[in-house]
């Protein structure tokens, strides 16, 4: 069947560029002076500056990954690691400068805040420009603020948790992150407090040839519950941008955290993000992830199940189009008895894109009675795309149940034929099948975000099916 290959289409709202205006943009490159300057700009305490300098040293000593996508086009000498926008942190959208506010308006953030969120943070380039939370949560002792404020106002809590879940030496881009981090969110949910509506942070990178290195630190205390959503996007430029964020999640005994991500970086972005959660006794962390943007993505959220009876679920979809190489997956360590992990990963490749599912499930000696079930499915929409599945499973205990299954293939001709016989065009039939393929993920998202994800799928499908 002949296919119509169209050029990649305009990603409409996501590609809107504002003028590259900033209050301060640090010079390109990565040196001790630059790291010190970022720290100075932020008026940080010495302990944080020391963490940054130690991380820089670690970064210089670590080698680039010898696996995964080719990162040779990344030249840190061409990246500005800190861009301070022309706006201070505001508690009201009215105070946010018009061009920045318009961007978030078009992305639907203020509207979502009114209807379905308990709190919102919005980061523009390297700094958070807006942060607010409903008053009743404040009264319950919930803390939701930007990381810089947290360093100033809750230093002991930050010191105890910052770069402890994700050690600086984990890999080169974690070390880079710790050296130049800026922005991000800090959340603390006190014991027993259950948030009924989600909190959301949105990260927008506008400045060309720059990086975003936001840090998200969430502590859900015993018996508490939270749904946190992060979204990210950037307009497309000709040269590479870099995103090396870090997410550290602490889910205490009997607590619950759902962490949802809709990632839609521009297709010149290298997304080298790190996310990790540590779960206590009977705690649960669920990851829901939609990965659509980026030129290269290397992202493997990790759950460390340290408490007896801890659980984790990962539900994720990656959609790679022309010139995209999305190397995503999941990692779980079962480090206590009766822990469980469930993975449901899907990927779609089209128009020459490459999707790789890469994972690691480790069941340790002390994880008696643990269970793990992994399922991944890959769909290829044409014969110029690539789809790989590279899972590692390490079992160190006999009293466990582990299973892994993966499937790869194209849309079944029979199914298309059936739908066409019911009056659908071939395009609509294929789009319906793809949406059905993605449904297990979209159904896990709040309805507004499921709609956004379906829109993204429609957007991605245009030009691929014909």
């Amino acid at each position: 069947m002949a296919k119509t290959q169209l050029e990649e289409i305009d990603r409409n709202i996501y590609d809107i560029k504002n003028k590259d205006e900033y209050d301060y943009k640090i010079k390109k490159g990565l040196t001790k002076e630059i790291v010190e300057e970022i720290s100075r700009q932020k008026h940080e305490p010495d302990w944080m500056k020391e963490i940054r300098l130690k991380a820089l040293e670690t970064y210089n000593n670590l080698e680039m990954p010898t696996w995964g996508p080719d990162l040779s086009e990344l030249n840190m000498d061409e990246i500005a690691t800190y861009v301070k926008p022309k706006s201070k942190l505001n508690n009201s959208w009215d105070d946010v400068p018009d061009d920045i506010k318009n961007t978030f308006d078009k992305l639907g953030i203020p509207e979502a805040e009114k209807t379905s969120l308990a709190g919102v943070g919005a980061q523009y380039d390297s700094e958070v420009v807006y942060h607010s939370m409903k008053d009743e949560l404040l009264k319950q002792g919930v803390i939701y603020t930007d990381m810089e404020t947290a360093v100033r106002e809750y230093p002991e809590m930050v010191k105890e948790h910052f770069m402890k879940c994700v050690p600086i030496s984990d890999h080169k881009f974690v070390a880079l992150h710790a050296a130049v981090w800026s922005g991000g969110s800090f959340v603390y949910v006190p014991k027993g407090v259950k948030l009924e509506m989600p909190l959301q942070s949105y990260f927008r990178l506008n400045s060309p040839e720059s990086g975003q290195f936001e840090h998200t630190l969430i502590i859900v205390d015993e018996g508490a519950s939270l749904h946190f959503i992060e979204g990210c996007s950037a307009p497309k430029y000709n040269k590479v941008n870099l995103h090396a964020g870090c997410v550290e999640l602490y889910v205490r005994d009997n607590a619950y955290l759902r962490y949802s991500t809709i990632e839609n970086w521009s297709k010149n972005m290298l997304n080298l993000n790190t996310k990790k959660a540590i779960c206590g006794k009977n705690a649960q962390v669920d990851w829901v992830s939609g990965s659509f943007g980026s030129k290269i993505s290397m992202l493997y959220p990790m759950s460390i199940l340290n408490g007896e009876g801890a659980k984790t679920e990962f539900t994720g979809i990656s959609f790679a189009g022309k010139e995209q190489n999305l190397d995503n997956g999941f990692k779980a360590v079962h480090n206590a008895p009766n822990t469980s992990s469930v993975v449901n990963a899907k990927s779609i490749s089209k128009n020459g894109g490459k999707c790789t599912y890469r994972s690691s499930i480790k069941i340790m000696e002390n994880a008696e009675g643990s269970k793990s079930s992994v399922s991944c499915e890959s769909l290829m929409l044409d014969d110029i795309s690539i789809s790989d599945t590279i899972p590692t499973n390490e079992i160190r205990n006999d009293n466990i149940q582990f299973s892994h299954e993966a499937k790869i293939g194209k849309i079944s001709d029979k199914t298309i034929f059936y739908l066409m016989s019911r009056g659908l065009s071939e395009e609509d039939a294929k789009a319906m099948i793809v949406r059905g393929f993605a449904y297990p993920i979209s159904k896990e998202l709040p309805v507004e975000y499921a709609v956004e994800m379906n829109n993204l799928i429609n957007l991605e499908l245009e030009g691929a099916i014909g």
Partner: protein
Amino acid sequence: MSSLKLNETPVRTSRNFNINNIKLDNISVPKCLKEFKNVNISECSSKIQIENTINKIDLKYGLDAELLNQVNESSNYRASITIDSKVNKDIAIEFNFDNSNTTLVEAIDIVASEATKSTIVIRYNEKQDVEAYHNGVIRAVAKSNSNVNIIVVNMMNEKSNNFLSIENVIEDNAKINFYIVDFGGKNSITNYYANIKGKNADNKLNTIYLGKDNQLLDLNYIAELYGEKSNIDIEVQGTLKDNAKKHFKGTIDFKKGCKKATGNENENCILLSDTARSIALPMLLCSEEDVEGNHSSSAGRVAEKELFYIMTRGFNYKDAMKLMIRAKFNKILEQIKDENLRNEILERIDKRID
């Protein structure tokens, strides 16, 4: 004593996962070899020619360059087997390690001519309890419409080192059924590569392994599908007891152009102790849209309910366990037509589980 880095996966993953290759320290790679004499060949007609001259063998993967060089430059046994009969007849080569034959470095080159049928059994036996060294290469080419069964049985002891590189090329409408019974070796390291290049070419790879004591098994199976409507099925059934450790790396690679190809991979590991360790990396690589690929991998104990059921029928725990494991292995063993060989393998399984 050498330090060897062997069995690289075709695609690397994170170094932290400890699966990209296997490093072995203190391996004695013998330099000067005397002829390996304790070899029995059941069928010695024009089909088998024992060659003294050394033809260089090139492998796309193999265990590593140093071990391949050893085979090319100083092998002490070399056999070239040409199948030219349309009637299936078994050929068996049996290598017996004893006090006078402790080192075997061999190359076996098999060519199955067009439209032939054949079964080749290659066995590595331990006749005396010696610390043996085996480094071998088996290469098979199945010409169009041929059908080849190859059965490799490793019954070396747990003191020895077993290194084996296998490469198959499968042409149009040809089929290779490959069976590996992997029991022996302190270190048993196997690299298997199938180039499934023909239209309708078919490769079935069935492995059983049973690791005990401190045995280390590293299995790196790679199947590349190039031919339209070609197929690969990989079935691996294994059991680990004591402190045994197994790495299974299975790659099915659908290359561009292999339209309507199919590939299935299933790996199951039964753990009989809480100190045994199993690592699996079942990979699916795909550059062609119109294919179907599946893999599955599982690990755990023998199902307690089934075990209990068998015990209610009068079996003690150990015998019930043996029965369950035999049943798992039988799925593969029943495809081996030689009943004597099958029974011998089953006996060995019982002994190893005891």
